[in-house]
């Protein structure tokens, strides 16, 4: 079996396992099946990345040759995102066992089945080379995500899920309209084929409308500033494990789809000229960085604070894209990867506190630094990464972002990046201050350190944050290859 034949299995294994999982009773077996399926998928994604960086892999489903049949087409860009998604899921699952047992005590078979569906949907989006297939996988992962969010124990989880459903469906339908317009103009749905045929017809209002629809639709799923309203509530009220998983994967995949369309399908020399995309994205990105960080500074609920911080971090990624250069795109991909590492670690630490204390409120963090030193130290170290302190992963991506801005002489962007990093210090510091410099109120029950099953995965991620801050061969190499794949030759045959 060659790597090309192996590659689709990273989508198929979770998809098939989800059916098995839905039928399993009890608490152990659904989790065990999910763990095995996720790790298998991550291993396949890890094998695919080096091969895809060399040459574009193409797998024709049912042996129908593309562009007629559905094709999985993997180059450095999607292999990088797929490895991120599957890898994050594989790291999060060992952590999930205890937290899910506490927060979703019943019908775990269905819960894990939804998780596997969401995972296989997200991987399907990244690997597929067919526009309509991307829409279908997007809806598979979105519908599973709505179900996962609704599992939250607070009743507001239902409202958050419903609102996400409304906004998410509008976003996905916008993508469908955009794909429809492209199909009408070119008669093909294969991304590589679209890229070839579009230049002949691209000076029409239909194609321009398609670009606008796809950007707005994906902006919704990506939580780009004015379209981010679903995200804070969804992240706050979802079960901790779901937040951990979504924070590292869902918005990243949406960003990838947007990049794939803007750069590969409508070449950047057209899409950034016909619409003032660069300016619009830059303004929205900077506004998102500021608004997200600003609101995060005043949130009493730490999960919601981190959710707003995610809105700000999406801003950094979009800012990298808006610079339209290899370095800028590299910074976007780097931050996509590094932000997944640090936000997952932070949400794990908060989820661990919720597991022990029962609440993620700032006032419940008081005095925890002494009773739960390992958990809170993990939070503080991951916090350093989100601020962008040297030797952490967060520093590497911000460094590239600043370089990209300087290359274009946009020094004011550097100032803005530094200011928002200072704002990150403020909101991370609030937690540290509460945990170490305030006494635990006497009327609160005493809490001890969290179980190792929660601590070890959290610390693995914290360690990865530092590892990728020092040894950047994998991340920078992968991100550069991804940026070159998008900006360079496009989808080489």
């Amino acid at each position: 079996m060659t790597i090309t034949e192996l590659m689709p299995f990273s989508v198929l294994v979770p998809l098939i396992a989800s059916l098995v999982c839905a039928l399993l009773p009890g608490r152990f077996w659904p989790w065990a099946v999910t763990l095995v399926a996720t790790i298998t998928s991550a291993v396949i994604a890890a094998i695919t990345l080096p091969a895809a960086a060399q040459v574009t892999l193409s797998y024709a489903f049912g042996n129908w040759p593309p562009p007629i049949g559905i094709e999985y087409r993997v180059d450095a860009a999607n292999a990088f995102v797929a490895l991120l998604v599957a890898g994050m899921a594989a790291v999060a699952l060992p952590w999930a066992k205890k937290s899910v047992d506490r927060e979703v005590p019943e019908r775990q078979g269905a819960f894990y089945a939804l998780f596997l569906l969401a995972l296989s949907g997200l991987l399907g989006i990244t690997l597929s080379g067919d526009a309509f297939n991307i829409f279908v996988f997007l809806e598979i992962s979105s519908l599973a995500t709505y179900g996962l969010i609704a599992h939250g124990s607070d009743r507001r989880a239902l409202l958050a899920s419903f609102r996400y459903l409304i906004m998410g469906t509008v976003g996905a339908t916008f993508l469908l309209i955009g794909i429809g317009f492209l199909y009408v103009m070119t008669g093909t749905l294969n991304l590589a084929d679209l890229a070839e045929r579009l230049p002949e017809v691209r000076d029409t209002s239909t194609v321009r409308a398609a670009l606008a629809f796809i950007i707005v639709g994906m902006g919704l799923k990506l939580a780009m500033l004015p379209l981010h309203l679903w995200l804070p509530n969804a992240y706050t009220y979802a079960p901790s494990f779901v937040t951990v998983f979504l924070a590292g994967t869902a918005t990243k995949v949406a960003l990838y789809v947007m990049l794939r369309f803007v750069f590969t399908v409508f070449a950047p020399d057209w899409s950034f000229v016909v619409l003032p995309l660069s300016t619009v994205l830059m303004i929205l990105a900077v506004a998102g960085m500021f608004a997200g960080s600003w609101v995060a500074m005043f949130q009493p609920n730490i999960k919601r604070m981190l959710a707003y911080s995610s809105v700000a971090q999406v801003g950094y990624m979009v800012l990298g894209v808006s610079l339209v250069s290899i370095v800028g795109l590299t910074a976007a991909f780097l931050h996509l990867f590094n932000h997944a590492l640090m936000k997952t670690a932070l949400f794990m630490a908060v989820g661990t506190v919720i597991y022990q204390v029962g609440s993620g409120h700032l006032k419940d963090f008081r005095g925890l630094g002494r009773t739960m030193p390992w958990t809170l130290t993990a939070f503080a170290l991951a916090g350093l990464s989100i601020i962008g302190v040297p030797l952490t992963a967060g520093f590497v991506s911000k460094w590239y972002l600043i370089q990209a801005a300087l290359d274009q002489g946009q020094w004011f962007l550097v100032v803005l990046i530094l200011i928002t990093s200072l704002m990150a210090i403020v909101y991370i510091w609030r937690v540290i201050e509460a945990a170490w410099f305030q006494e635990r109120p006497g009327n609160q029950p005493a809490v001890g350190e969290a179980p190792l099953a929660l601590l070890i995965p959290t610390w693995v991620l914290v360690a990865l944050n530092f590892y990728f801050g020092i040894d950047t061969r994998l991340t920078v190499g992968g991100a550069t290859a991804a940026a070159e794949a998008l900006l360079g030759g496009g989808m080489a045959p």
Partner: protein
Amino acid sequence: MMTVLSFFNYWIVVVLMMIGFYCVIARGNMVKKVMGLNLFQTSVFILFISAGKIVGGSTPIVREGVELYSNPLPHVLILTAIVVGVATTAVGLALTVRINEAYGSIEDDHLGDEDDGDEQ
């Protein structure tokens, strides 16, 4: 006049889309929101199906004496999209039922304020 009429189905698409979108945005009742969403999606289905029609084209079944066929691909795509739409509606309505059980109301406008109290 004839150009307007010849794009009749596209006008319907636009009108339906706007009605659906308006329902989603303006209505507080969650069932109405889901129905608006449904209408919005349906308009896109019509857009795809309209694109598959070829003037003078026959049903896309290979047989003697027919040269021109309608394009069957949009129909196939929309079959999938209809399934997606049904699933979305089902999840939306299921959530509405659960929200009604939890809050005793499905008017979106009131539910947000009621909850600020539980934050403490």
